[in-house]
């Protein structure tokens, strides 16, 4: 549906793609943020490369369509330059958990003030169906015709261990629940991470599985250990906010309330500082 949050770009996601649900949830969350005093102009989005990244072209929000795996690093640079912006980035599971895993670990470690939304479909869709770091062992794709021989990562456990201060999982098939998670994540001051279960109708159709197994958890667990136990448990697939805590975000720890872009030193002041250093 064309609306004020959708651009003129032709949408080329496959019919039935989980990205549609996710896209609608993002737009709903942005409207919720509007009610909380966060204008669309304060938002800055990034995206990696993959089917997920097309959201950059469709969503009418300013931002940067970055490189595969690097959008989390780029987003941190935006936040450092102007901490008054709400910076969020869309990643794919190959993008975030493969190519760009180190940026994600370090963003969590330093509590960077960005929100990372991972479109987790368990497959490289845009490059036609290879296994990703979270594909099940035995997954058959063009690069693993006899079945993937690696065990999958548990990215939620990894993020909890790395020190992420907001960890959640949603399902594109439950768009209202997902929208609430997105809005909460974007209002979180530190590093917020949302893994989104998102079926790929062409290469990894998980709608049936998720509709049967997904289970909304009530409040977040009391401790990080309980959260870890929850994301590691078998059986039903929990969705919801698993962990949330307040911790000073990186930009404030590094430079207090300074905003490099908004508080630029005028030339005269800068030159006189340089002169002082030159003259020792």
């Amino acid at each position, binding site marked *: 549906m064309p609306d004020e949050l959708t651009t003129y770009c032709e949408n080329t996601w496959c019919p039935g793609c989980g990205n549609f649900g996710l896209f609608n949830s993002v737009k709903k969350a942005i409207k919720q943020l509007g009610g909380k005093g966060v204008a669309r102009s304060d938002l800055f989005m990034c995206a990696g490369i993959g089917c997920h990244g097309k959201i950059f072209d469709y969503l009418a929000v300013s931002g940067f369509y970055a*490189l595969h795996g690097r959008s989390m690093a780029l987003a941190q640079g935006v936040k450092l330059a102007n901490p008054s912006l709400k910076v969020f980035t869309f990643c794919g599971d190959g993008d975030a958990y493969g190519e760009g895993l180190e940026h994600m670990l370090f963003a969590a470690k330093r509590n960077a003030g960005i929100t990372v939304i991972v479109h987790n479909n368990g497959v490289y869709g845009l490059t036609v169906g290879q296994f990703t770091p979270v594909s099940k062992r035995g997954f058959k794709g063009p690069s693993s015709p006899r079945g993937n021989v690696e065990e999958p990562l548990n990215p939620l456990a990894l993020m909890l261990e790395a020190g992420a201060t907001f960890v959640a999982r949603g399902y594109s098939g439950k768009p209202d629940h997902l929208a609430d998670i997105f809005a909460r994540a974007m209002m979180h001051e530190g590093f917020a991470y949302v893994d989104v279960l998102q079926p790929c109708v062409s290469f990894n159709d998980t709608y049936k599985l998720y509709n049967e197994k997904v289970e909304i958890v009530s409040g977040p667990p009391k401790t990080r250990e309980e959260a870890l136990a929850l994301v590691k448990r078998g059986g039903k697939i929990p969705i919801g906010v698993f962990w949330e805590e307040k911790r000073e975000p990186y930009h404030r720890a590094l430079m207090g309330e*300074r905003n490099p872009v908004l508080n630029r030193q005028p030339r005269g002041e800068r030159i006189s500082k340089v002169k002082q250093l030159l003259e020792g």
Partner: protein
Amino acid sequence: MAKDVFTFMVGGKAGEGVKKAGNAAANLFASRGFSVFQYDDYQSLIRGGHNFSVVSASARPLSSHYMHADLVVNIDARSYELHRSHVADGGILVRNSDLVKDGDGVGIPMTSLAKECEHPALITGVGSFVMLCAALGMNWADTAKVVESEYRRELQDNIAYAEAIHELAWPSFGGKFKLENGGKVRPMLYGNEAIALGAAAGGLDIYVAYPMTPASSILHYLASHSEDLGIAVMHPENEIAVANMAIGAASAGARTMVGSSGGGFALMEEAISLAGMTETPLLLVLSSRPGPSTGVPTYSAQGDLNFALGQGHGDFPKIVASPSSASEAFRLTAEMLDLAWKFQVPAILLTEKHLAESRMSVDIDTDKTAWAEGMSHGKGEYKRYLDTPEGISPLMFPPSAELIKWNSYEHDEKGITSDAPETIVRMHDKRARKASSLENHLKGLNTVNVFGTGKRSIFAYGSTVMSVIEAVKSGGLDAKIVQPIYLDPLPLEELSKHAADAAIVVEQSSTGQFARLLRERAGIKVSKVIAKYDGRPFEPAELAAQLKGAL
């Protein structure tokens, strides 16, 4: 100082205060109004090994150290073996008589005199500095004053040790040289400090880097002055993060610089193409050391010229330029930051360990420094990639009601992804026009330095120019030195003025990368390439002899 150039050399193990002694000596000369060049030779280790520092000073402008010294102090036996031949005619050789019992020169028991001190190894450097003071005829009272200002930590030990050294040294060579006053007192900067301060003077907001020698001291300097300069400094997980963060920061409006050496810079290359496609202004420092690969971390080379010129996949405009002194590094860094912003391109400041980590007298006019400004969008609908006659699309930064879309994919004017053939061509042509605008703009800037008025041309770039200038001066050679400051776009018109006769090329590359560039791109006839690729900078006297042969 009746001599044209006075040189002090001190050698010892890492951890014996060798570099500090060089620093103190350089400060002493600088404070008397001399032009000073300090070269620190060190290995990639923290303790032991062999380090030495050479400080040359002159009443005339000086652009290199000399390896023949008027005073050579050897703190350990290895230094004595390596540097006993570096004493100039009429110079003084000092050995540590605790470690080299019998030998040439003056023996001073530097180790046993230090035994009483808390840090006996570290303090030996103080001793070598005191010997310089004695050789220059400074009495104990004056010497004590400079020791006090240079060596503030554990001052009591330092003073006691210094006095003991002074008393032993004075009878042997006290006042052998006379230190007169030079001219105007000028500050001294390491090349990396000049780059950091030049960037600051040019309006830098953010510096992002991962440590790698010889670029690291830019990071250290800016981190230590982050608060007073109002520059945010970040050291993230790796160079890939560095480059991408910097691009993100620039897209939010921050003047941003990054720095690394070969290997780390290689990790940034994908992001350089990203800056090319997204038209993000970004200044990158490539500080070279001998490669390939890990190579020789603490030494100098010019083997990264082709690497700098060939950065990035795909066709897009960029800037590569290389300074030939700390003063020029200051000016050029600010200028390149401005150019990166004016033309929304990645700009690479190429330098080498020999400039980055050598310390020299500077003449800097901060008021004439460029200040980075890009073209801003006025009113109305915003198109990030507006197709203009100059190829430059106005900039706009968040927060804004207008949509600002930076895109790594090929894109339309609004920044929405496109694979339409006419859009691909249109955007390539727009970026190409930007390259032409840049070339035109450079015609109004100083893109080539010419030193001297001799007939034959010697071509050099970067830190090598410093050695060549000094070689031509000290050798009394009839030659002019031509230095392209800008290497991409190469100032062909300016260079063509020096293309008439066969030229000599001096560079620190084993395959002659610079000579090939001059031949293939600028049509320069190269009769001889003097190449040095042992990691050490050219020594002026040695180079003068080579140039004499070639001329």
